[in-house]
């Protein structure tokens, strides 16, 4: 790996450009100090930490009943997966059984969240590549329009649109209201047809191909060495999806395809996520068809702070979020608060591939690559 600190910053044709934390395409607060030679990037210095909010310390001071609402703020674009990791870790230590209906509901919201998150990814990526006042903004607004439909579903289910507090230790907090399943089916059908439209706009589109094919190639060996996960890994030829390899929360009951591409460039990752759109819709339909009756939690609803006590032990729970593997390592000491929580953010590990693929790319490609890596800085900085 090229040692970024050995770059000769004093070279006369070299320009140090700061893609600072405030930047329309920084996807959050990310600072990349790029050393450019003309239009080519020869060095990357990534600075993170602008969104650090001490999640891991907070978890030591908040009880198991309080923290799931805060956990959604790590990956705030895919809040359901974030909460699920924490709650599953606590359930693993306490050996709490989650009722079948609750597991299916968790799968349902997880996949709906994946659709919403990928809508946001596609919209912001195209906007970065096309500019806020160009064709990219068009696709952005279409994707946001579809994402609003999913958020309306969540609002009818939970009451909140972005940060839910849906999960609790032992199950979930809310059950489906009247008429929600029909609304959900109609929404999924509409989103499927609209995703068709996006593909029409982008596939075979020479402008899109020029920007994404061969850009930001992550080879299979690099992918496995660096420890990335999610669509980045599957776009580079590694067939690994936690829902298939280590099924949790009844994922083994559902049929779905895990897309794998071998090219490793931005186009491959785009293709993987587009297939994931369809497969998530497929899983949602299967869940709605097969939802069992039963309780939604094996523990009574939260009534007091001291209600959930987890005995001594430790566990690491992993969830396949839209960005990759979200993990929560929990050390419990018998009280109602954890002793230590360590959060594995998917985007944090995914960002470590940037120095390898940004060097040699041009400035415009930096934007396309950052978008296809799809980081959310809530998980990176915690």
């Amino acid at each position, binding site marked *: 790996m090229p040692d970024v600190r050995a770059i000769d910053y004093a070279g006369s044709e070299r320009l140090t450009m700061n893609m600072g934390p405030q930047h329309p395409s920084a996807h959050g607060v990310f600072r990349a100090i790029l050393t450019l030679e003309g*239009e080519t990037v020869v060095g990357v210095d990534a600075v993170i930490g602008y969104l650090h909010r001490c999640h891991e310390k907070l978890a030591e001071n908040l009880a198991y009943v309080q923290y799931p609402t805060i956990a959604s703020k790590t990956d705030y674009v895919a809040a359901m997966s974030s909460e699920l990791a924490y709650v599953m870790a606590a359930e693993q230590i306490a050996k709490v059984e989650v009722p079948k209906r609750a597991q299916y509901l968790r799968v349902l919201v997880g996949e709906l969240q994946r659709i919403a998150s990928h809508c946001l990814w596609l919209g912001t990526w195209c*906007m*970065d*590549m096309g*500019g806020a006042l160009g*064709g990219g903004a*068009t696709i952005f607004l279409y994707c946001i329009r579809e994402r609003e439909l999913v958020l309306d579903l969540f609002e009818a289910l939970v009451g909140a649109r972005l940060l839910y507090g849906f999960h609790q230790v032992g199950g979930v907090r809310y059950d489906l209201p009247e008429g929600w399943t029909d609304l959900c089916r109609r929404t999924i059908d509409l989103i499927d047809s609209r995703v068709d439209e996006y593909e029409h706009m982008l596939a075979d589109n020479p402008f899109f191909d020029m920007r994404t094919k061969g850009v930001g190639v992550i080879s299979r060996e690099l992918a496995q060495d660096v420890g990335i996960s999610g669509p980045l890994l599957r776009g580079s030829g590694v067939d690994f999806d936690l829902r298939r390899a280590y099924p949790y929360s009844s994922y083994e009951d559902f049929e779905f395809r895990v897309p794998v591409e071998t090219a490793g460039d931005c186009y491959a990752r785009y293709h993987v996520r587009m297939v994931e759109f369809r497969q998530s819709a497929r899983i949602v339909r299967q869940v709605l068809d097969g939802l069992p009756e039963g309780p939604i939690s094996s523990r009574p609803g939260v009534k007091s702070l001291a209600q959930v006590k987890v005995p001594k032990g430790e566990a690491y729970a992993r969830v396949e979020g839209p960005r990759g593997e979200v993990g929560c390592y929990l050390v419990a000491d018998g009280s109602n608060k954890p002793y230590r929580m360590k959060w594995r953010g998917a985007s944090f590990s995914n960002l470590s591939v940037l120095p390898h693929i940004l060097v040699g790319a041009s400035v415009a490609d930096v*934007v396309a690559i950052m978008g296809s890596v799809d980081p959310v800085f809530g998980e990176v900085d915690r």
Partner: protein
Amino acid sequence: MSGFSSLPPALQATIMSAAVLGALIGILAYVTLLERKFAARLQSRIGPYRVGPHGLLQPIADGVKLLLKEDLIPASADRPVFNLAPIVFLVPCLLIFATIPFAPGIGVADLNAGVLFFLAISSLEIVGLFMAGWGSNNKYALLSAMRAVNQIISYDLPFLFSALVPVMLAGSLRLSDIAAAQAGLWFIAYPVIGQLAFLAFVITAVAAENRAPFDILEAESELVAGFRVEYSGMKFAIIQLAEYAHVLGTSFLGALLFLGAWAGPGPAWLGPVWFLFKALFVFLLLTWVRWSFVRIRVDQILRVSWKLMLPATLLLLFATAAVIVWRTPHA
């Protein structure tokens, strides 16, 4: 109009220029609103709506706002260059309207080499653009200005060639002659050559005006506002006005070269109205392209220009010449 023609020529020219300039600024302001509303409808939303009925007072509100803004000049900027750049950018973009005849006999200056004048003057905006990028003393602005110069120079040649096709078909560089030659058949309806030339014209026009998908120079997501980034207040307004004037001027040129200028059903005084509609149609076509595609990288833009557009338009020119020779009856 006999009273008008009896005035001394200098006065005639002044009045005509003033009238054209006044009408132009008014139309430009509302063309920005037209673009915003059109783009909004393409994106399932409404666009300006609250300021005045259906947003009709929005351009005025924007103008007042920009007038009242603080005029910030970066401390390390090259002041004379920085301050002059918007004007040097604006003047060529307004001057291109000088040769366009809005109706037979109405126009500021119907030069013999109208097309040539148009294209030559419109390339002068590069000077103003580079002055803006350089005077800002800002790496982003400089990068963007360098890209812009590269791009506009590369696309001016194919633009010229595609504009030369109607010139060859009409046999004259004078714009009113070209418009008159389309009385029977608009040049865009000319089999194959007309359509190809129009297509090439649209593509090179989009590129020469730095509009998406060739707007890498202002790439908001990478370089924020490109060469304009340090400008605020009225100077920014002047730059915006100049850009829209250039686009509108090219739309007028396109309507004149290919769509028959003032030819249309109805009485003769309706001619300029038809001309305006056709120009707005070309403008909306450019806008529709702008809002439908992501942008491509600068090296790809240049590759398209030198490897695709230039040979293609050259071939088109030769083909046009061959067709003209073939169809002209020999004496």
